[in-house]
């Protein structure tokens, strides 16, 4: 009887491991729920129109993050203006022109390396090179140039993935009809890869919004409003994340949680947008 294959042997170790697997998955979700819950509970009471529409004033003893929001937008726009052409162009070269070899391998290795370098190292390099050597000092431009290096691997690899998913028949078709390579890239390959490129840009925005260590010593922490639209990029400016850190160091946790809530809402919205794009891409393919 006991040799029957219908008798299922119950392994205790199997059950223990199964419980551990469920527990791990539960912990991973519980951490997220806990963090978001805490930030919402502690941040929501301090979230107000005044917070996001004014600048902090010590005379009136008020706290506002409008200056930080504007700085964050400046840094996002300038960083993307610098990095998007470089990242997309580099990916086009690697995927459409390059034919292997040492140089390509070196470039691919350095892209990997860039994505592994910690942000504090980018901060040190940005401070020395853009800040001191190029004499840009503590400024939004220094911060944006530093972040451009950080975001470069994100844009490049997203674009590469998107380019790889463009069917080979499109290329064969275009060259067969007599299109030159540049004409084909411009009119067929890049438009087909556009959703992937946009996903890369949004991931880049997420990285910029969350960044602090690379900006602390490059863009500084000023929170004043813009007087001079173009001149502002040569002035120091702290992003939302930097303001959150400063509030923390001053033990103003009420302010910190309010900013944290704003940040988490932004992260959530960006996350949803990437999902919508990804779903649309899958539908088109299916």
């Amino acid at each position, binding site marked *: 009887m006991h040799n029957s*294959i219908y008798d299922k042997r119950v*392994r205790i170790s*199997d059950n223990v491991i*199964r419980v*551990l*697997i*469920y527990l*791990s*998955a539960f912990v*991973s979700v519980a*951490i997220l729920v*806990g*963090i978001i819950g*805490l930030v919402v509970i*502690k941040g929501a009471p301090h979230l107000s129109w005044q917070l996001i529409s004014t600048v902090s004033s010590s005379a009136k003893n008020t706290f506002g993050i409008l200056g930080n929001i504007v700085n964050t937008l400046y840094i996002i726009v300038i960083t993307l203006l610098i990095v998007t052409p*470089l*990242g*997309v*162009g*580099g*990916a*086009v070269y*690697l995927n459409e022109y390059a034919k292997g070899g040492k140089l390509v391998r*070196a470039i691919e*290795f*350095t*892209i990997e390396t860039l994505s*592994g*370098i*910690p942000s*504090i*190292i*980018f901060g*040190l*390099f940005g401070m*020395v090179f853009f800040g001191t050597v190029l004499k840009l000092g503590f400024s939004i431009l220094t911060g944006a140039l530093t972040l451009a*290096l950080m975001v470069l*691997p994100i844009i*490049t690899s997203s674009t590469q993935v998107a380019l790889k998913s463009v069917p080979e028949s499109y290329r064969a078709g275009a060259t067969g009809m*007599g299109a*030159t*390579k*540049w004409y084909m890239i411009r009119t067929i390959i890049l438009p087909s890869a556009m959703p992937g490129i946009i996903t890369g840009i949004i991931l880049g925005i997420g990285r910029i*919004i*969350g*960044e*602090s*260590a690379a900006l*602390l*010593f490059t863009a500084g922490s000023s929170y004043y409003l813009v007087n001079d639209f173009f001149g502002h990029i040569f002035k120091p400016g702290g992003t939302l994340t930097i303001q*959150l850190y400063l509030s*923390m160091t001053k033990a103003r*946790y009420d302010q910190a949680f309010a900013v944290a809530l704003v*940040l*988490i809402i932004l*992260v*959530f919205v*960006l*996350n949803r947008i990437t*999902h919508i794009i990804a779903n649309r891409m899958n539908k088109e393919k299916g």
Partner: protein
Amino acid sequence: MNKVLSIMINSKTKSRVEKTAEWIFKICALFALIAVVMMTGYMIYSGTPALLKVGIKEILFSNVWNPSAANPQYGILNIIFTSIVGSAGAILIGVPIGVLTAVYLSEVASSQMAKIVKPAVELLAGIPSVVYGLIGILLINPVMYKLELFFFKNDPTHQFTGGCNLLSAIIILAIMILPTVINISESAIRSVPKHLKSGSLALGGSQIQTIFKVILPAAKTGILSAIVLGVGRAIGEAMAIVLVSGNSVNLPLPFNSVRFLTTAIVSEMSYATGTHRQVLFTIGLVLFIFIMIINIILTKIIKSGDDQHA
């Protein structure tokens, strides 16, 4: 009109445009290479003067850090140890949870549960590191302080930290490496060929046996890369742990207030001058070297994985 329609006439300009386009793309691609070479150059250029001035032995192999004394000392050995112990601790906690969650997502979960867990992991990766620090201060530090009071109540030699200690930092780091470990392990597990799994199940292996004796060993390289990437993430994190870890230079014991390579730079760069500032750049160089070693190990692992498949 004829001119425009002909494919022959403007072939010269066409080829010039083609060449220019290729060159522009090539230059774009070269930027990553240039950036890494320049960063390496500048890290060495700004990190070595202190080593020459103060002495390699006095910086790397001494554990007395006292930059503002009349006779300043710049030993960073304790800081290096702290970064190593901190990352190891984070890996010890984070990797088992991460790999088991990856197993859950790829092998155990129903598609509905996966639809809840997967986005949660994604969001976890998107939360800014300072927010983790904020949570650490308000949630983990008080708990640690209670533990500290409990353990060291009768120990007059212990310096109380208010809960800002190595253990708090390790917990934060473990949470922060979770998304990296989960995502990479999950895709490694998913890329294990289906016939291995069916073979094991057909021979009478239970689901758990199949996962741990067949699937995970087959996904070894991927999981190993996940761990190495996790180490890189943990050793490079600064803002999440700077206010949580107590920030004084000590031996990396669980309830000591400690300083990491990253937090040493963050906490003193704003006011350091002269030799002190140069030593902070040396700390940056040490961190950079760690990261480069990790990167090279990672490339080796991925390459060995490719060779196996080929």
